[in-house]
């Protein structure tokens, strides 16, 4: 990576930071400081704007760089990720988006607490939302550190540390000063940049092969050294049965986890009605689907034009496949075109991380202030404004994420994202679906559903080969590995559902018919929605 790349990439990225900070201050000028404004941006975004913002929240660097890199290295097996990430949106569209928009106000816990005893349910749902957010946040911070260090040349420890701290500080500024409105506009800007960059690169790949996709695939297969096996599943996950189950587990977590991600759920509150929420999901499915189709082209393009060996030499996990592809498409390392394209991709990747991180921080600060603080504060203490608490919480979460991001910097980013999805699917999805659709669901069932998914998923990860017992583990010197799979979803998601059912049938209290009626009527008609 020459100096030209770095200068240009830094320049582009500084422009992005300047623009987004400008948005934040401009939005902050009109700030009223109400909870409605801070958590939901005034609820007046249009479906198209929110659709772009949702896709901005969802298309993380793990998708842009990670999936393309996995395809470049392992061929078809990388493509399975993009399928899972997209199909997951049907769960959101069919079962969650409209109903959550109608029932809730700011967070997941609002939906559940509407028909249960409020305090225990809020504490449970708030805890699991914060856990999921922090896991997701750490993944993005780790990604930011390693990526930027790699893209901007300096692979020294100091560069990574300062990158993580810088990203954390920026996201705290965005969130605590601008709230949801600034965060949404940053997502929109980022989604347009990311989609624009992807369209340009995809077009260049297709032009290089004269629009002949068949030749693109053949060239990729030949260059990979695996032949036709490169275009079929099995290179990455086709080994023993453990790795196959691991993949099924990951697939399950991906498709069920999206509907439980707090920062995705909170996006539905930024539009005025359930119909607008539905239309924003339709927009985002279109955008996300198109984006993942293009990452497949980019992945095979990188395999065909750069070659898996060169990709692996640059970054063992394949994260630099797309920047290397951009360099090649622009005309090579010494050309102006290559320099420009490389810098653009680097800046877009960094903007992506920054925006995703801001969205998650906002969602988790809402959980802390709206769910945990309100339930846990001492009765006699002087009540503070919830928004003030949320701003402070954003700073605290930023600090925690920076700390954990520095500690966990050697963990694999894709794994951390998969883990966040698994915890979301185990702890958040069962309680959400039960309270929306099950007449007999009780408070005990809700609390058990959350902890019955949260605790097993976290414990199974601690006992997995990721943490100990193999050379790649976090603590490679120790061995307390008792669970063979890396992703706990296959076990912990069913456990979450079973625990919710068990808690309900053993519950001494009878389910509250009237409040179930209220939830059902409100969720399907929007009566009384804010």
């Amino acid at each position, binding site marked *: 990576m020459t100096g030209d790349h770095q200068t240009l990439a830094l320049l582009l990225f500084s422009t992005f930071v300047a623009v987004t900070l400008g948005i934040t201050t401009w939005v902050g000028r009109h700030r009223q400081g109400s909870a409605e404004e801070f958590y939901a941006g005034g609820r007046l975004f*249009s479906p198209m704007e929110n659709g772009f913002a949702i896709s901005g929240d969802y298309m993380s660097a793990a998708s842009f760089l990670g999936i393309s890199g996995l395809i470049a290295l392992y061929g078809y097996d990388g493509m399975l990720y993009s399928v899972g990430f*997209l199909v997951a949106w*049907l769960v959101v569209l069919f079962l969650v988006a409209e109903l959550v928009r109608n029932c809730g106000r700011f967070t997941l816990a609002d939906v559940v607490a509407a028909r249960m005893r409020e305090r225990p349910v809020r504490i449970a749902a708030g805890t699991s939302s914060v856990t999921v957010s922090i896991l997701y946040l750490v993944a993005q911070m780790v990604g930011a550190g390693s990526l930027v260090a790699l893209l901007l040349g300096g692979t020294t420890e100091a560069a990574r540390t300062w990158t993580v701290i810088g990203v954390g500080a920026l996201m705290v500024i965005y969130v605590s000063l601008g709230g949801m409105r600034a965060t949404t506009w940053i997502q929109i800007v980022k989604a347009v940049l990311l989609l624009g960059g992807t369209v340009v690169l995809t077009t260049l790949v297709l032009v290089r092969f004269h629009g002949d996709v068949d030749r693109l695939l053949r060239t990729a297969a030949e260059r990979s050294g695996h032949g036709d096996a490169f*275009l079929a*599943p099995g290179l990455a996950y086709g080994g023993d049965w453990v790795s196959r189950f691991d993949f099924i587990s990951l697939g399950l977590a991906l498709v069920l986890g999206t509907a439980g991600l707090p920062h995705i759920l909170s996006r539905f509150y930024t539009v005025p009605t359930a119909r607008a929420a539905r239309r924003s999901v339709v927009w985002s499915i279109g955008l996300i689907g198109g984006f993942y189709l293009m990452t497949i082209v980019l992945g095979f393009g990188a395999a065909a034009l750069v070659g898996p060996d060169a990709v692996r030499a640059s970054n063992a996990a394949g994260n630099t496949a797309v920047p290397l592809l951009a360099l090649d498409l622009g005309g090579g390392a010494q050309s102006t075109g290559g320099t420009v394209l490389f810098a653009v991709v680097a800046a877009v990747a960094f903007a992506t991380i920054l925006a995703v991180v801001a969205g998650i921080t906002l969602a988790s600060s809402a959980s802390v202030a709206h769910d945990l603080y309100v339930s846990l504060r001492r009765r006699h203490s002087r009540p503070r404004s919830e928004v003030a608490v949320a701003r402070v919480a954003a700073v605290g979460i930023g600090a925690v994420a920076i700390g954990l991001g520095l500690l966990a910097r050697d963990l694999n980013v894709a794994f951390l994202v998969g883990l966040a999805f698994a915890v979301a699917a185990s702890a958040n999805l069962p309680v959400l679906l039960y309270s929306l659709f099950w007449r007999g669901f009780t408070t005990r069932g809700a609390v058990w559903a959350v902890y019955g998914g949260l605790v097993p998923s976290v414990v199974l990860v601690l006992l997995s080969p990721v943490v100990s017992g193999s050379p790649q583990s976090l603590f490679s010197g120790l061995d307390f590995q008792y669970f063979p799979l890396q992703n706990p979803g296959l076990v912990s998601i069913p456990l979450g559902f079973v625990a919710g059912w068990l808690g309900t049938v053993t519950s001494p209290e009878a389910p509250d018919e009237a409040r179930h*009626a209220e939830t059902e009527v409100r969720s399907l008609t929007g*009566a*009384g929605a804010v």
Partner: protein
Amino acid sequence: MQSSNDRSRGGGSGPESAADHRTEPGGGYVETAPGTPYDGPRYHDPRYDDPWYDALASGWGESAAPGAAEPTVPPTRRHATGEPPRAAADVYLEVQRSAAFQEVRSRYRRFVVPAVAAFFLWYVAYVVTATTAPTLMARPVAGAVNVAMVAGLGQFLTTFLLTWAYARHARLRRDRTALELRWDTQELTRGMQGGVS
């Protein structure tokens, strides 16, 4: 198909003209996109979009339309004629039992349950086949494209198709009745504690 028509009261449109500027039919992005057809007669009536319109004066529930067999929400008129207001919980229970609501719910479920079952099974089958039967997936179809590639792109295609089908179904079969129920329910719970929160 046609939702209940109890909104088409015979009264003049004088009193609500004040609210007209708020919602030009088809003009607002929120509820009706340009070119988004309703499945019924288009009401140039602002009250579909205005929850706070005072409906007490408007002759509720007069089913003047041919679809009069369609159920309406029973309690509305009683409240309008001066019965003492009940607790919000009773209102929700009553609306839940009303035939109009049951219709909305069953339309929603009749679409969503089979659709969720279908795409979930299709996705799980895809993932399981990809991990357990790679030789089947590697079978060539045309050129470099094999079964696995077709199945993967098929997942994209079915996702797009189901999204379109759901949005269309909701727009044509649910939105209108749901919106009417919403205003009716809000009228009933207005002013009660815990009603509109």
